[in-house]
C-alpha cells in the first residue's frame, strides 16, 4: 500500500466533506434555535438539487446564479414549513420527530410524482481533472468544495456580525433571556429554519452536477450530517467542520482496508464512542 494511495484516499474523503458539513450546519442551526431535529432536512437538500436541475440543466441559467436561486428557493420553503408546521413544536422533540417524518414522506413522494422516478443528470459546469504528484482531484469537486467553504465562511460571518445572526445566536443560547431583550422569537425561529434549509438546498445544488438528482437523494447526506454534528458537537460550527473532516478521512481511508458495510459500521462506531466519551462532541459546548 503506497503512500500515494493513502493520501489519495484521504483526499477522496475530504473532497466533498465540506458539502456535507453544509448540510450538517443547517441541521444543527435548526436544532439550536428550535430545539428540534428536522428529519426532513434531507428533502430540502433534494429540493435544492431539483431547482438546480430545472434552472441549470433544463433552463440554462448560469451555474452560480442557479446556486443562488436554489439557496433562496429552499430557504423560502423552509420558512413556509416553519410557519405552517414547526413553530408550535418548539422543544417538543418527539412530536417534531413525527411531524418531520411525515414531511419527509410528503416531500419525497411529492418529488417522485412531480419530477419522475428516474435519476436525472445535471451536466457538470466544470470538467477535467487536476493531477498533482500522482494525486487526482476533479476540477468539479474542487470548485464544489471551495464553494462550500465560501458558504460556510459566509454563514460564520452572518452569525457573528449581522443583527439577525446575532439574534439567532442569542435565541440558541437562551431563548428566555433573548425574549426579554426584545428579540422576536417567532421571527428568529422562522429565519433560522429558513437559513438551515437554505444551507441544505445549497448543498443539494452543489452536488447535483456531481451526483445527479433523484427523489430519494436526501437520505444518505442526512445520515452523514447526523454523524458529523454528533462527533463535532451539536450547535458548534467549528465542530461541524472538524466532524466533517474526521468522517471524510475515516470513510476515505476505511474504504481502502475494508468492505462498504464495515465502513458504515465504522461511522456509527465513531458516533457511539464519541457519545460515550464526550457526549457534547469534540468541540461542543452548546
Amino acid at each position: 500500500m503506497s503512500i500515494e494511495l493513502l493520501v489519495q484516499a484521504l483526499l477522496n474523503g475530504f473532497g466533498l466533506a465540506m458539502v456535507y458539513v453544509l448540510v450538517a450546519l443547517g441541521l444543527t442551526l435548526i436544532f439550536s434555535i428550535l430545539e428540534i431535529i428536522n428529519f426532513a432536512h434531507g428533502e430540502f437538500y433534494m429540493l435544492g438539487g431539483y431547482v438546480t436541475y430545472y434552472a441549470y440543466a433544463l433552463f440554462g441559467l448560469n451555474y452560480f446564479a442557479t446556486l443562488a436561486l436554489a439557496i433562496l428557493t429552499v430557504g423560502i420553503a423552509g420558512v413556509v414549513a416553519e410557519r405552517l408546521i414547526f413553530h408550535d413544536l418548539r422543544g417538543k422533540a418527539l412530536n417534531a420527530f413525527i411531524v418531520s417524518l411525515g414531511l419527509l414522506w410528503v416531500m419525497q413522494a411529492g418529488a417522485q410524482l412531480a419530477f419522475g422516478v428516474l435519476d436525472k443528470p445535471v451536466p457538470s459546469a466544470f470538467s477535467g481533472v487536476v493531477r498533482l504528484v500522482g494525486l487526482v482531484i476533479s476540477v468539479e469537486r474542487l470548485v464544489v468544495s471551495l464553494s462550500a467553504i465560501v458558504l460556510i465562511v459566509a454563514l460564520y460571518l452572518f452569525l457573528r456580525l449581522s443583527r439577525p445572526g446575532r439574534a439567532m445566536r442569542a435565541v440558541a443560547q437562551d431563548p428566555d433571556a433573548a425574549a426579554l431583550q426584545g428579540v422576536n422569537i417567532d421571527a428568529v425561529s422562522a429565519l433560522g429554519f429558513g437559513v438551515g434549509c437554505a444551507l441544505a438546498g445549497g448543498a443539494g445544488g452543489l452536488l447535483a452536477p456531481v451526483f445527479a438528482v433523484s427523489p430519494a437523494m436526501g437520505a444518505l447526506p442526512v445520515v452523514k450530517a447526523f454523524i458529523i454534528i454528533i462527533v463535532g458537537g451539536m450547535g458548534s460550527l467549528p465542530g461541524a467542520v472538524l466532524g466533517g473532516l474526521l468522517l471524510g478521512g475515516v470513510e476515505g481511508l476505511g474504504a481502502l482496508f475494508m468492505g462498504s458495510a464495515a465502513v458504515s459500521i465504522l461511522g456509527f462506531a465513531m458516533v457511539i464512542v464519541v457519545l460515550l466519551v464526550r457526549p457534547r462532541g469534540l468541540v461542543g459546548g452548546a
Partner: protein
Amino acid sequence: MEPRQWEAATPAVGIALITLAVGALPLVTRDSYYLDVATTILMNLTLTMSFRLQVSTGQINMAHISFMGIGAYTSALLVTRVGLSFWATLWIGALVAALLAVPIGSVALRVSGPYYFLITFAFSEVVRLFFNNFFEGLFGGPSGLVGIPKPGRLFGLIFDGKLALYWLMAVIGVVVVVALVRLDYSRFGLTADAIRQADLVVETLGVNVFRFKLTTFVLGSFVAGLAGVFFVHYRQVLHSSDFGLEPMVLLVVFTVIGGTGSVWGPVVGTILMTIASELLRELHHYEILVFGAVLILTMLFAPEGLVALPAAARRVLRKLRARATEPAGVGLAP
C-alpha cells in the same frame, strides 16, 4: 402529563375490552387477509407497548427493533440448524435478546435525552449492518433467511393455518398487554413517570435510576425478542430490512400518535394507524404521500396523541358550555 386519578379504577375494563375484541374478531371474519392484518396489529402492539414502557422513563430507544431481530435470528437458527422446537426457542430467543440488552443498555444509558436517542439509533444500524453483511453462512447476508418453518405441534394442536397463528399471537399479545398495563398502574409505573419528569430528584429519594431504566430496557427487549420469534415463524422469511430504520420509525409513529402519556396510547395508536395504513394501500402510489400528510395533521391537531383526544374534547365542551351559561350581557342567551 395527564392526571390519572380517574383512570385508576378501570385498567381491568380496558383489558377486558381488548380481550373481548381480540376474541371476537374470528367470529366476525375468517378472511385470511383480515387475520393477517389483525395478527400484524397484535405483533406491533407487543412491540409498541414494550417500547412505550421505556418511553415512560424518558428513553426513546431506537434500537428496540434490533432486539426483535435478535430474537428472530436466534430462533430461526436454533430451529433450522439445531432442530429445537419453536415452543422452546420462543423463550430462548426472548432470553437471548434480554441478555444482550444488558450490555447494550448499560452502555446506552450512560447518556440521556437526545444523546440516548442518537446512540440507540447508531446501535440499531450497527446491528442491522451486522446481520446483513457478516457471517453470511449463518444469517444469510443480504438475501436473508428463507424457508423457516411454522411453529410445530403443541399438545396435539397444529399451528399451520392463519387462524391458529392468530390465536397464538392473540394469547401472547394479551398476556403482554395485561402484564404491561398492570406494571404501569403499579408503583413501577409511578416511579417510571417520576423518573421521566425529574430523574435527579428521584435519585435523591433513594431510587437507583440507572438500575430502574436498565430494568425497563431489558424487560422491553425481552418482549421485543418474543415478538421477533413469533414474527419469523409466522412470515417464514427473515431479512434485515424487517428490523431496520423503517419498521422502527413506524413503531415510534404508532406510539407517539397514540399518545406516550398513557399506557393505552400504543393500543389506540397501533390499531388505528395499522388499519389506516392498510386502507391507504388502496391509493397505490399515493400511499406514502397521504400517510405523511396524516402524520403531520394528526400531530398538529392532537399533539398529546389520539388517546388524549376525548379528554381534550371534553375540556372544549366544558368551556363552551360554561360560556353559554354566562350571565348578563356577554355571550349567548341560555
